[in-house]
């Protein structure tokens, strides 16, 4: 009889064994996820520094490969972000759960997991180390390293320090990985385009494996304000987080602990709350029993007198910037309709969130998108490209809204953009591609779309009117020459000159309305 063997696994090991849940399920999807994670880290790094991001992405094939479906690619991403201090580089790129993001404010990633996952995926598929160069403004540190998966730490093969004459600041990373570019090409370009839509202040350059250059140029250098870090709201805390806070924060009693470590908790709130949780105010936090902690956490969900969560930790794109981004990437003209709405902050389960939505329609959309609804979904400025049908945004746009109210028919070309920002996006899976239907979120998304769609009605009416007037003037242009022609034939004379009459009714838009005034219409047959 053999004993089962127990062994603990490191976080790196855990993610190595479960890489599909982080979006590395197959070569094409892994290519996409790796690019996405690296680009998002770069954007965050530049935004933190308050400079408009400049991102360079290159994917190239390793030379002399057999003609197989999956190939080895070199992924290179450069940015102008904060740069990573040399002493942190091994941990940031070689250790799971290490990063600058473990605090409560809106950010693209959460735990700094993605970048390391990309490195790890490259390592396990190609056995090649990762190359990293970074500078925080001083010298450039170059690393060649890989991850010791079992021990969750970096193996550094080479560390060189170079002069930095151009004062470059930022990070460049190069990963070799097994991938499948041909299958993911369109998604990848779509991802970059949509990123450019919600990050209109970023310049993104992309050179693909076939050497083609894609440039997504910024439409503005204005950036939305950075989110502030805030204390967690009591509603959103769970038992594990609470335990960790107790372990790391000093406080002489539970009342002070509540007041110091959570937002919106003053002396009176703390007292009333503890009374409800049946915990003495004097209790030392470290003396709380596990049962006490569970009771406290459960009570945070029941106590309804907490203030609403603070929204300064959120950073919506803003109506102006979002409009700039959408207009730029969809190549809208003045003849198209666009309305962007940024809603007031709202909360679900103790997490603050803000919904932004845009509704776009017009001739350009008909040409580029065809008829019907096209949805662009974003969460914390990340485009969501997969599993559209299962998300809350799809539901709001397709099920909750009666489009007829806005004069929108099923064949009206319509683009709907929805951006949800929150300290915690209610993703349904670690893959982060679609959001669960929290009722508060669903309601806000629906209202945001409705608000943005409100102006469509007027736009449609105006367009119908212009079209009608254009038709009307075309009628004159069509019939006057005929009248001239046949009256001349009837009278057996040379065709008369009708230029003057035609000039009175020429169908030049936008002069239409003015011209119409010059051509008064006789409405009824007048009797005499």
């Amino acid at each position: 009889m053999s004993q089962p063997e127990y062994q603990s696994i490191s976080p790196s090991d855990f993610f190595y064994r479960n890489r599909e849940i982080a979006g590395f399920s197959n070569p094409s999807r892994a290519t996409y996820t790796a690019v996405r994670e690296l680009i998002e880290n770069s954007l965050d790094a530049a935004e933190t520094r308050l400079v408009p991001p400049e991102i360079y992405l290159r994917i190239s094939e390793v030379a002399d490969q057999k003609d197989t479906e999956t190939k080895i690619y070199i992924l290179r991403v450069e940015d102008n972000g904060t740069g990573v201090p040399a002493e942190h580089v091994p941990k940031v790129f070689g250790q799971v759960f290490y990063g600058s993001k473990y605090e409560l404010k809106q950010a693209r990633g959460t735990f700094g997991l993605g970048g390391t996952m990309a490195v790890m995926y490259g390592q396990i598929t190609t056995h090649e180390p990762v190359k990293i160069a970074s500078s925080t403004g001083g010298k450039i540190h170059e690393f060649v390293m890989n991850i010791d998966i079992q021990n969750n730490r970096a193996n550094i093969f080479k560390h060189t320090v170079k002069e930095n004459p151009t004062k470059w600041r930022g990070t460049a990373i190069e990963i070799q990985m097994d991938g499948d570019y041909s299958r993911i090409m369109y998604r990848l370009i779509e991802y970059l385009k949509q990123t450019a839509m919600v990050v209109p202040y970023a310049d993104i350059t992309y050179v693909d494996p076939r050497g083609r250059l894609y440039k997504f140029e910024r439409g503005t250098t204005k950036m939305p304000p950075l989110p502030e870090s805030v204390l967690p709201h009591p509603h959103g805390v769970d038992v594990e987080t609470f335990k960790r806070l107790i372990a790391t924060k000093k406080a002489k009693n539970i009342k002070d602990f509540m007041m110091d470590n959570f937002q919106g908790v003053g002396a009176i709130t703390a007292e009333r709350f503890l009374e409800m949780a049946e915990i003495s105010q004097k209790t030392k936090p470290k003396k709380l029993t596990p049962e006490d902690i569970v009771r406290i956490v459960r009570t945070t969900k029941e106590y309804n007198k907490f203030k609403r969560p603070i929204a300064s930790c959120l950073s919506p794109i803003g109506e102006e910037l979002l409009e700039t981004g959408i207009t730029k990437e969809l190549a809208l003209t003045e003849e198209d309709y666009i309305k962007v709405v940024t809603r007031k902050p709202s909360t679900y389960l103790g997490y603050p969130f803000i919904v932004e939505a845009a509704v776009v329609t017009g001739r350009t959309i008909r040409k580029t998108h065809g008829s019907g609804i096209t949805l662009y979904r974003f969460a914390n400025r990340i485009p969501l490209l997969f599993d559209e049908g299962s998300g809350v945004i799809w539901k709001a746009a397709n099920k909750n809204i009666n489009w007829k109210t806005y004069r929108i028919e099923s064949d009206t070309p319509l683009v709907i953009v929805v951006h949800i920002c929150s300290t915690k996006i209610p993703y349904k899976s670690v893959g982060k591609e679609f959001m669960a239907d929290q009722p508060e979120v669903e309601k806000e998304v629906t209202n945001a779309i409705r608000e943005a769609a409100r102006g469509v009605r007027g736009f449609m009416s105006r367009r119908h009117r212009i079209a009608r007037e254009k038709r009307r003037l075309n009628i004159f242009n069509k019939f006057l020459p005929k009248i001239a022609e046949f009256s001349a034939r009837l009278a057996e004379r040379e065709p008369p000159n009708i230029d003057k009459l035609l000039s009175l009714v020429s169908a030049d838009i936008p002069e239409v309305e003015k011209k119409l005034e010059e051509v008064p219409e006789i409405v009824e047959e007048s009797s005499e």
Partner: protein
Amino acid sequence: MERSLTQLGNLIYDQINNQEFPWIHMQSRSTDNIVYDANIRQYVLGPRMIRRHSRNIRHIRPFTQLIWTAWFAKELVTQRKTSTLRETYYSARGQRDIEYSDQTESDNIITDLEVALNRAREEFNIFPAERSSIFGDLTIEYTVPGYEGRRTNLTDHPDGVMIGPAITSSEFLETTADKVLVIEKGAMFNRLVEERAHEKFNALLIQTAGQSPRSTRAIINRLHEDYDLPVYIFTDADPWGLHIAMVIISGSANAAHLRGLATPDAKWIGVLGSDIVNYKLPTEPLTEYDHKRLHELKADPRYDDPFWQEELDILLEIEQKAELEAFSRYGLTYIVDEYLPAKLQQ
């Protein structure tokens, strides 16, 4: 005719030359401008005039169509060709931007041109589809191109001669007939020809094939006016038959702008409501629609005369109607041998 059309062309032309949106004046054909003139015993257009103006978005298309139709008519007249309503409609379809959505629209514009010129469309060589015919001792001389001077006697054709542009434009040379007998249906017309009714009654026979076309009414009028022949009309005893007779006698609202189509002296000789009773004719009950139509006719000014009011009342009273063919119960020749002689005697 040619001159009227050229004049219309000049009118429009000059307006355009003066940099005005062209327009024309014409009598309104709307129903409230059609009035019954008891003196001449037919419908006429009232005094109301309308302007059809090319500056009006709703007028410009029919205006253009009117000018085109005028040009088309002029082509017909100068080339001495004839056309039909249907052909005119299809000719317009060959013209970009002129085309009609259906023939009714085209027919309407042709009527507008009649009003604008104050002339019947036959004068500018547009004819309705031919379906009525004429038979009897009438010698005519054709004037249509290719047949000029050729003569024929209408008894030469036992099926009757179609009343088309050629007959309409022909000269009537001589006739021995002393009356005109108008019949509503082709079958009865054939029966009468077969029974030599034209000889027996010394009559010209005309069958209208339902509501008589204008050219047929014009010929009836002409035979009455020029040769002083009395006209007798013989139709079904139902609201539709009555009205076929009435349109020959007093004209239609649609042709209120024209003269020379009505024959007020024509007599309706049957089948009368009283005949149904007197001759014990096989009948059918009136339908709801018949009822409605009879009441409409009672209110129509053309039926003001006590004779007509009484005939309408009889039908409403007995609630029955009878067709010409009903006389066949007494044998195929009864109508010629017995009924018509009795009627014409009266």
